[in-house]
């Protein structure tokens, strides 16, 4: 039985449009805390299991239950996984936002809605499908208090039918999602089937959107960046983890706790790690430095407000020269800002975090796979350079689900840096903690507990000489600061090199970093196919910058630097480092509304600045 409104509102668009296969976006508008995340994940995984490149973005409120939340799933046969600005298929589950959600769609889009809301009356240029959720849910879920939670799974069934998803894959995804809850799995599966059956019997498909099987995801995994960072840290050999809960970093440590409990309990049944929930971020980073001083691989994870609190200790770590790893899962600031939205807002702050002259090493992952590898890189660099290292992830990378190649086992042994044993001290007769023996500006250290009368050194945030003795002598201070500056030059030779994604001698160059990368690969294609503009692209992976970046800028006439912040923070850092003659080449592209960056906005901005 077809509903009559389809004939009225949808038929004219649907009838003439070519099928759109594996290239569209679905937005699900729900209420936070309604179990929608499970339904969304099942939908995402189903498309993934059908071999179609897919990405999911959760745009959620700073709230536990009751406020609106949106989830966008993008299927892209070309493998574009950045957020797509335009919504093709809306699932309007939230009465609060339904009206606005429908009004913001482009003509020809699909809206699946709760029948009593009568959203079909709002516009005549969309394709509407009504679904009587209450009726369908009541039939499959006798227990009324559970209905709210399974209601969302009904839409999964309806969408599966409309997009031609394989229900066997839906079932597989759903049973994986509820692996530990057999009863819930059954209930949800019945709801999905009921939705599917309803669509079969009551809806006539008039929209052009289809999912067809591909073979682009086999062997791949789906993971969020925070879990990837957790697995990476575990395999990097982290032993002391401290944290203070803060969105969007909490899930990194929570995931790490689960993995460590599973894989890092020794044969004696004892933990080869300590994880401490600290009283605040001051304490979290203080513990990291205490543990790093004593020789452990220690880390914490935080977000902007936590970084602000860590500023004093960051300076201490830099000046006393103590290793430690700090993950900054960036969110929108300043202050509380938009705690559940994404940004690259802490770049310039972290680069110089502390009073006094300070420079920090930053690693910038773009993908979960890089979160995994940079977890090891960060510890190796921190211990080799004897300094805190910051890994600058963001909410989009950390909390959203991404397709990824499976991670490769770390083949490189842990690099623990210049640590003298009691035997070394005996052989040397003593040592000077801050003396540049090797010409790389990195001194030798001993760990507390080293059993030699000459092993001890005095770690102090106050002025010190090469022997780590208290000193206010002008030359001691200046010499030490100069050595620290030289050590930063050593860091430059050790950090991950940028990725030259395309370097074909175009006039236009683009520099981006972190999650902007996924929009940029699409932008590069859009610029070329839509505007005939060819552009080269360099992806930064670390600070300090390296030769490749300077050469890239020198080799192009105009260089766009893409930042997910208002002030073009990375561009400002580049300006400080590059040749004066090149500064004028830099042009800023900025995205800072809290939503994950999309290719269309970047393309439009570059084209506008190109004067086309």
């Amino acid at each position, binding site marked *: 039985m077809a509903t009559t409104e389809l004939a009225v509102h949808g038929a004219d668009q649907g009838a003439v449009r070519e099928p759109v296969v594996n290239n569209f976006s679905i937005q699900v508008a729900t209420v936070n805390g309604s179990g929608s995340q499970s339904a969304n994940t099942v939908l995402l995984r189903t498309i993934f299991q059908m071999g179609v490149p897919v990405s999911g973005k959760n745009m959620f409120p700073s709230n536990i239950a009751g406020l609106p939340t949106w989830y966008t799933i993008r299927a892209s046969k070309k493998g574009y996984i950045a957020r797509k600005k335009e919504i093709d298929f809306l699932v309007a589950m939230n009465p609060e936002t339904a009206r606005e959600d429908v009004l913001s769609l482009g003509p020809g889009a699909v809206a699946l809605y709760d029948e009593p809301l009568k959203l079909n009356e709002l516009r005549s240029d969309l394709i509407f499908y009504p679904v009587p959720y209450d009726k369908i849910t009541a039939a499959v879920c006798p227990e009324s208090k559970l209905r709210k939670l399974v209601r969302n799974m009904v839409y999964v069934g309806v969408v599966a039918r409309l997009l031609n998803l394989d229900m066997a894959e839906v079932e597989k995804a759903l049973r994986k999602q509820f692996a530990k809850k057999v009863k819930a799995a059954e209930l949800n599966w019945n709801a999905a089937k009921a939705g599917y059956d309803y669509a079969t019997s009551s809806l006539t498909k008039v929209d052009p959107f289809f999912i067809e099987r591909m073979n682009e995801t086999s062997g791949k*995994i789906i993971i969020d960046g925070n879990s990837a960072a957790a697995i990476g840290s575990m395999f990097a050999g982290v*032993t002391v983890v401290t944290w203070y809960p803060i969105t969007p970093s909490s899930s990194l440590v929570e995931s790490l706790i689960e993995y460590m409990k599973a894989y890092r309990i020794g044969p004696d049944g004892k933990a080869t*790690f300590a994880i401490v929930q600290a009283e605040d971020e001051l*304490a979290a980073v203080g513990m990291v430095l205490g543990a790093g001083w*004593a020789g452990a691989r220690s880390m914490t994870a935080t977000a902007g407000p936590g970084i602000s609190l860590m500023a004093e200790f960051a300076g201490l770590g830099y000046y006393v020269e103590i290793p430690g790893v700090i993950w900054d899962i960036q969110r929108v600031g300043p202050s509380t800002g938009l705690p559940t939205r994404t940004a690259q807002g802490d770049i310039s702050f972290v680069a110089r975090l502390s009073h006094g002259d300070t420079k920090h090493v930053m690693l910038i992952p773009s993908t979960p796979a890089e979160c995994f590898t940079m977890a090891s890189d960060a510890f190796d660099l921190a211990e080799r350079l004897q300094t805190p290292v910051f890994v600058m992830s963001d909410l989009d990378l950390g909390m959203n689900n991404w397709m990824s190649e*499976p991670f490769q086992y770390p083949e490189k042994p842990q690099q623990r840096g210049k640590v003298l044993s009691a035997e070394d001290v005996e052989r040397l007769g003593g040592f000077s903690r801050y003396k540049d023996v090797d010409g790389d500006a990195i001194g030798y250290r001993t760990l507390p507990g080293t059993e030699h*009368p000459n092993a001890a050194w005095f*770690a102090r945030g106050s002025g010190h000489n090469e022997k780590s003795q208290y000193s206010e002598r002008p030359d001691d201070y200046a010499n030490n600061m100069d050595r620290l500056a030289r050590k930063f030059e050593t860091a430059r030779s050790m950090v991950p090199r940028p990725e030259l994604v395309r370097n074909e001698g175009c006039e236009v160059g683009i520099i981006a970093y972190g999650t902007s990368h996924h929009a940029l690969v699409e932008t590069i294609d859009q610029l070329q196919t839509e505007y005939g503009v060819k552009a080269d692209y360099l992806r930064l992976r670390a600070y300090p910058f390296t030769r490749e970046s300077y050469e890239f800028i020198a080799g192009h006439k105009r260089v766009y630097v893409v930042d997910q912040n208002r002030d073009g923070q990375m561009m400002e850092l580049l300006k400080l480092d590059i040749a004066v003659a090149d500064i004028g080449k830099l042009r800023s592209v900025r995205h800072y509304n809290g939503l994950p960056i999309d290719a269309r906005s970047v393309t439009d901005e570059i084209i506008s600045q190109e004067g086309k």
Partner: protein
Amino acid sequence: MAATVTPQPKTNRIGLTVLDYRGGKTTLCAGCGHNAISERIIDAFYEMGIPPERVIKLSGIGCSSKSPAYFMGRSHSFNAVHGRMPSVATGAVLANSKIVALGISGDGDTASIGIGQFVHLMRRNLPIVYIIEDNGVYGLTKGQFSATADLGSKLKTGVINDLPAIDTCALAIMLGATFVGRSFSGDKKQLHTMLKAALSHRGTVMLDVISPCTTFNDHEGSTKSYKFVKDHEEPLHDLDFVPHFHDIAVEYDEGTSLNVTMHDGSSLRLRKLEHDYDPTNKVAAVKRLIESHEAQEVLTGVLYVNTTAPNFIDMINMTEQPLATLPESATRPSREALEECMEELR
């Protein structure tokens, strides 16, 4: 028989002399109570025969926090940031649970800027000896009141303190520290004995040591002056300590003395001056402390001791070998483990 024997310097049970426990020359003011505390620390570690290489000294910022430079030069030391020594100490002890941690703080460093970390250190019962060198003023910034200054105490400038003091001992007892004492830098025997007992305890030891500031807070009207503390000190008991390596049985009368067996088997004897005081009773201890404020007494002694509560390291259930020195084979799971993680995500 040899006619001439070069006199051998006295050594402790591990063959070290007291000189092996010394540090740099103090730069604090002459007569500063903190110097006396440093001396007692040297004596206690020497007498207990703890290798200085197995000790870490940590401090915050202030006159007190400078003092670790003036004792035990063979120990690693960390002079951290103001009020944040507890977190640095916590990290270090987690990394190496075999180490003996000594935290030196002041009243400003602990009771004002550092109160948050202090509170949580006490709550965790981390194995550490935490000493507050308490003079009621900020010395390095030239004599402002701190939060342990007593109500009505007077500064040199004539300013009267109009806020109540934070009693760090009462706080520590309530929060979960398992060995809490108050002493006086001028009470050599009591402090010395208390320190040795502290080194036998596995858990948070919090000692508030009144340590007069001769420059800014030793005048008439101050309640942290040498004279005031001498006149108002109210010891709860006389302390005796028999270390575990001294195999002597000392008779004691249960009616007048209390024997506490420490974690390492040493004995702390409290010869009661106040007959009804029970240092294992938390509620009574806090009550007695509050009463002492009203009576303007400086109540000293072992205020509270609990040798059965689990410490933070026990609770974490860590492996025996220090985390800092675990080999890569113990800290990097196998290839199969990674494959298993990946398979779950497919």
